[in-house]
């Protein structure tokens, strides 16, 4: 057991080191773009994981929260000149409140009905913003160019700064989730996922804890919305409320493995480069071959590893553990 833990720790340390240092040597802007997308979607996947993986409420409408967050900070910036970092915090708080309010009716639904309701939510929000003149309707909002730098959350010469901001966000959410896993909140979330009746019988207020989960998830997703708004310096409904965002978020989390911290990160680190690279290399052929490769890859994982990539990791761990035990037994004989 200890040996396995140690290997995992060393691997994780190497991963963190690589994620921090290697990007410094990447100069191609497109590759930098992929890195930014990987960390952004890793954070989004973790946010999804809180409700989808831990509480077991599968959301396919995260774009609703994403879009609301991006509009909150952008509107504050464009209309009132509010610093994007304040907008970033405001986006988190307002989207969390929005998630809570949406959750009041939606958390009454179970399983597939919850999923369908969240799809509808994403679509409704998109149409709403497309027709809301105050926030630019279908044209959206352009964020005025400011002085490049961390203070203004704008960088023009390189995308790496965005990558490191995303990496810090990812680090914070990982720390949060590690704490959550070991606390009452995490146990109660899992208990609700495993069996709602038992959860109630153990004194857990299911509705309250579902609302907490959806508010946290929505808040983080909203902050990611601000992140993308600052990255592309414009927001429009078709872009920020795109259903693809919702699907991709759920996909990378499920693909990586839900209900644990590492899953969505793995999912994002593998799926997004494939998606972006196939799109860049073959997207312009007009044959849709990029989507076919992407799709085939997902189908293969679903068929052979329904637990996601973390299932593969767990199998390897179990095998190592068995080998260690066998070796010990051999030594004892």
């Amino acid at each position, binding site marked *: 057991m200890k040996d396995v833990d140690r290997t995992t720790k060393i691997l994780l340390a190497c991963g963190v080191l690589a994620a921090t240092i290697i990007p410094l040597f990447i100069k191609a802007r497109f590759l930098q773009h992929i890195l930014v997308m990987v960390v952004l979607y890793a954070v989004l996947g973790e946010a999804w994981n809180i409700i989808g993986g831990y509480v077991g409420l599968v959301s396919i409408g995260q774009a609703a929260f994403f879009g609301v967050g991006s509009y909150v900070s952008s509107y504050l910036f464009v209309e009132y000149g509010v610093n994007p970092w304040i907008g970033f915090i405001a986006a988190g708080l307002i989207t969390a409140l929005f998630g809570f309010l949406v959750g009041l009716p939606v958390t009454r639904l179970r399983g597939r009905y919850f999923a369908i309701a969240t799809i509808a939510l994403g679509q409704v929000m998109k149409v709403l913003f497309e027709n809301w003149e105050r926030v630019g309707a279908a044209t959206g909002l352009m964020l005025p160019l400011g002085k490049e730098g961390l203070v203004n959350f704008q960088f023009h010469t390189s995308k790496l700064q965005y990558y490191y901001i995303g990496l810090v966000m990812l680090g914070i959410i990982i720390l949060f989730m590690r704490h959550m896993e070991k606390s009452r909140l995490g146990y*109660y979330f899992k208990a609700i996922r*495993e069996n709602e009746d*038992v959860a*109630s*019988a153990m004194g*857990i207020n299911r509705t309250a804890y579902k609302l907490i989960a959806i508010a946290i998830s929505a808040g983080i997703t909203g902050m990611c919305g601000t992140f993308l708004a600052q990255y592309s310096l414009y927001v429009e409904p078709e872009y920020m409320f795109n259903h693809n965002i919702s699907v991709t978020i759920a996909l990378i989390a499920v693909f990586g493995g839900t209900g644990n911290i590492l899953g969505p990160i793995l999912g994002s680190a593998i799926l997004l480069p494939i998606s972006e690279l196939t799109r860049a290399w073959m997207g312009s052929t007009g044959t849709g071959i990029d989507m076919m490769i992407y799709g085939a890859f997902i189908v293969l994982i679903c068929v052979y590893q329904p637990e996601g990539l973390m299932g593969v990791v767990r199998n390897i761990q179990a095998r190592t553990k068995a080998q260690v035990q066998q070796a010990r037994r051999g030594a004892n004989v």
Partner: protein
Amino acid sequence: MSSHAKLVATGVTKRFGGLTALNEVSFTVGSGEILALIGPNGAGKTTLFNCLTGFLKVDGGTVEYNGLNITNWAPNRICGLGVSRTFQVVQVLQGMTVLENVMVGAYLRHPRTAPARESAIAALERVGMLDRADALAVNLTLPEKKRLEVAMSLATEPKVLMLDESMAGLTPTEAAEASQMIRSLRDEGLALIVVEHVMEAIMPIADRVIVLDSGTKIAEGSPAEVVSNPRVISAYLGDKYAKHVIN
């Protein structure tokens, strides 16, 4: 002894469409008492549990806990007051370990993880499951799951504990151990309501017995009184048991 607790059901009635599953059932149970609830299949025992613990809404009657009307409260609030139950069809958190299952219960009174874990370990020790603490609940045998459920309920530190056929599937030795445990819980001042089919296990330890048949309470009394009650014998225990009593 913990503070005195008293659960009073008055005229509890539950209908499913045209079927009256419970018809004006009344009883009282207090600290330091084992109340056995018996009756043939479909008599309404589990329905009564569900009505008492808020899993089903009653159509009539009241449930009071220490003078507080808790009729139709949400299950989690009833559990928070100190009324806990297990399920007839065993219900555990399959994907979590035995210890984690019990910790979910323990968190109710101990919001911090370290005390919750200690309390959970104590509950597991109590039901003799500590050696299985790291096992996944899904991998347990049925009797082990039943014991786990009891540990989970105990971890919520109840004043009233309702056990729904917790001894089903146990070997005679294990059943004896289980009755010993139920007795010691009573001696600690818990009020227990026990639904049980294993008569040999429950009759010797019950202080009082109520008998349900088709949703109606047909008898109440000491185990000796109840088993000699002709209505009970004809409704539930049958000729075989009747002969046994006479002999």
